[in-house]
């Protein structure tokens, strides 16, 4: 009984979906984009998982070796260093970007003269190709021609060349990322702020709420949706960072992505662990996204 009615139901929706010419057109229209995405992005992920479970190299498809590549990957000190650098980088840069970005958004959430200029200043770092900004900042941190290295040493903030010290280098990388993406964060948050109707604040003020109270009781809760979207995007962006580490540290400092790149693209022998790390990044990035959506209750619906 149940199967029969289930089948009947299925057939009816199938008929409804593909019987109607308008709906068929809809499917034809999304199909090309969907196919490209499936073939060029999702299929390679599955293929990457297969590669990570074999002893394949770039040139030859190997035999199944179980989780050997994953074991080797976790034993590799470069991987562990890349992982910790990536985590530190992600947490620090996103936190700084959020705090500074929110501050800027609150400050410029009003009409003032010179707004266009500020908006332009916001967009300039964002529009920079990341690698080019990495090249530029590296030149400024360098110990022979670098103005920042010179000034920082002259006023005694640091003692020694920035690029030759791993800790300073990581701080420098975080700094450049903050420079580049804080404005973008501010822009998103500002757009969110502008959707909060002024009357809400007016009413709160009449009720005698202080500035702080208004911020924590009104602004933050109403901004939650925007904040989650912005922070999730930035977190995933930071987590897969490649170009900044690759160019700015000139291979001196590993991130997860540069570890993968070195393994699969530079080395002849690290193809397996490199692929394992690629799958690792994919799975953990997915987990981060799930965390935001499930635990923090981010809205993902595309409906209005």
């Amino acid at each position, binding site marked *: 009984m149940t199967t029969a009615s289930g089948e009947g139901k299925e057939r009816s929706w199938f008929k409804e979906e593909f019987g109607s010419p308008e709906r068929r057109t809809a499917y034809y229209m999304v199909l090309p984009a969907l196919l490209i995405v499936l073939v060029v992005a999702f299929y390679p992920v599955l*293929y990457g998982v297969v590669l990570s479970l074999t002893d394949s190299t*770039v040139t030859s498809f190997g035999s199944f070796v179980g989780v050997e590549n994953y074991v080797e990957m976790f034993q590799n000190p470069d991987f562990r260093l890349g992982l910790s650098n990536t985590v530190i980088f992600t947490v620090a840069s996103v936190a700084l970007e959020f705090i500074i970005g929110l501050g800027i958004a609150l400050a410029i959430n009003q009409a003032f003269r010179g707004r266009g200029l500020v908006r332009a200043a916001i967009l300039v770092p964002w529009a920079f190709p990341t690698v080019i900004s990495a090249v530029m900042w590296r030149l400024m941190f360098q110990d022979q021609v670098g103005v920042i290295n010179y000034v920082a040493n002259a006023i005694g903030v640091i003692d020694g060349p920035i690029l030759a010290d791993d800790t300073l280098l990581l701080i420098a990388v975080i700094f450049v990322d903050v420079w580049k993406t804080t404005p973008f964060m501010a822009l998103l948050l500002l757009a969110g702020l502008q959707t909060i109707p002024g009357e809400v604040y007016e009413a709160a003020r009449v009720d005698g709420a202080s500035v702080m109270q208004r911020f924590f009781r009104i602004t933050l809760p109403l901004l939650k949706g925007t904040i989650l979207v912005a922070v999730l995007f930035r977190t995933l962006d930071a987590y897969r960072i490649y170009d900044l580490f690759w160019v700015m540290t000139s291979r*001196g400092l590993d991130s997860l992505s540069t570890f993968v790149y070195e393994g699969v693209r530079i080395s002849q022998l690290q193809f397996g662990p490199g692929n394992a790390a690629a799958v690792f990044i994919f799975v953990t990035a997915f987990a981060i996204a799930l965390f935001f959506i499930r635990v923090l209750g981010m809205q993902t619906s595309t409906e209005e």
Partner: protein
Amino acid sequence: MTGIRRERPGTPEARRYSRRDFLKVGGAGLAGTALLGAAGCGGGGSGSGNLVFTMGTDTSGTLQGLIDKFNKENKGKLKVTYREMPTDTGQYFDKIKTEFQAGQSNIDIIGGDVIWTAQMAANGWVLDVTDRFPKSEQSKYLPAPIESLTYDDKIWGKPWFTDAGLLFYRADLLEKSGFSEPPQTWMELQEMAEKVMQDQGIKYGIVFQGSNYEGGVCNALEYVWTHGGDVLDGDEVIIDSPETVAGLETQRGFVTDGLAPEGVSTYTETETDPAFLGGDTVFARNWSYMYALAGTSDYPDVTPEKIGVTSIPTVEGAPKANCQGGWNLLISANSDLQEEAWEFVQWMSAEPAQKERALSATLLPTRTSLYDDPEVNEKVPTTVVAKTALTNAKPRPVSPYYSDMSLEMSEQFNTSLKGDESPEAAVKTLQDSLQQIVEQAS
């Protein structure tokens, strides 16, 4: 899809790299995109008497001239096309590697970095020329390039041009502080540098390339070799030795003693030039090209008269060792025209072609006789001032997994130079990881 892959029937290599099974698994998903790619595939190739020769971008612009000359001499018989490759040797190798791995290369002759031989030979990409290149012929070339072409007791190509790490010194400054001769040992170098720095207020004693890259490996290996250490003995990894540790300690010592700038662990050739030619440093380790930059408009103060060039110092009683660089000529095992390709290699490595390349592009020849050629001596002064250093250079370890070994070495050498790890610890780590690479390889 198979229509796009250009396999050469009859060559075993094409078979070996065709990997049908692999294609089934991997390529299936991309069948659609393959159609788009067909238009992008390179043309050219070896027809009757047409040869393809690859080499990195020739900044001097003289290579094409030489090839034209060859084509003219062999008109109606042979025609060589120069296919330009990336200047960066790493990118060039990537490109060659990918083409050979995909089994779709149309290359006949390869101008290849000296460190590529073993890897290309082990993969069956290049032709064994042992029979065509007898010992009697080999003796006309410098020993290091020949050694760099030898793998598995066979020889895989002919030497083209060479290079070596050299010690540049400010003869004028040394003289002012009372030294008439350049240092022979590291100890002497340190003494001289310290005295000059103190006497004349010079900022640094020595600069070199300490960054985490291939050049950093060459630099560190010079310290290792001159202290009596080495990387490989046959297939055995022997890097963990007191000699190696002593070498790295000397190198690190230059930083801790304030002779070398602290940033030297991030330096490549780019940073070395201005540090030495800008007048801030007494000694510099660099490749021979730097000599030609002295006194040019970028560096007007330090003229060629003020500098001297010599071998890398050593420790008392140990042999000299300058790290060898340079390029060889190899023939693709896939080539249909191996005889013709060999003819081109012969011509290119012969004295007249090498001499012309030396005169027009100031590249160092591999033919021993050219080091006594007055014209070459005049045009390329390093062939006089650094003759012994250049002719006695030492090649880097020859291994089919050299590129992986180099990655490990550059990382550990750099760690030790920065002081993040002691030389002992770095060498221990290196012994293990190199051992692993050698084991994986066999």
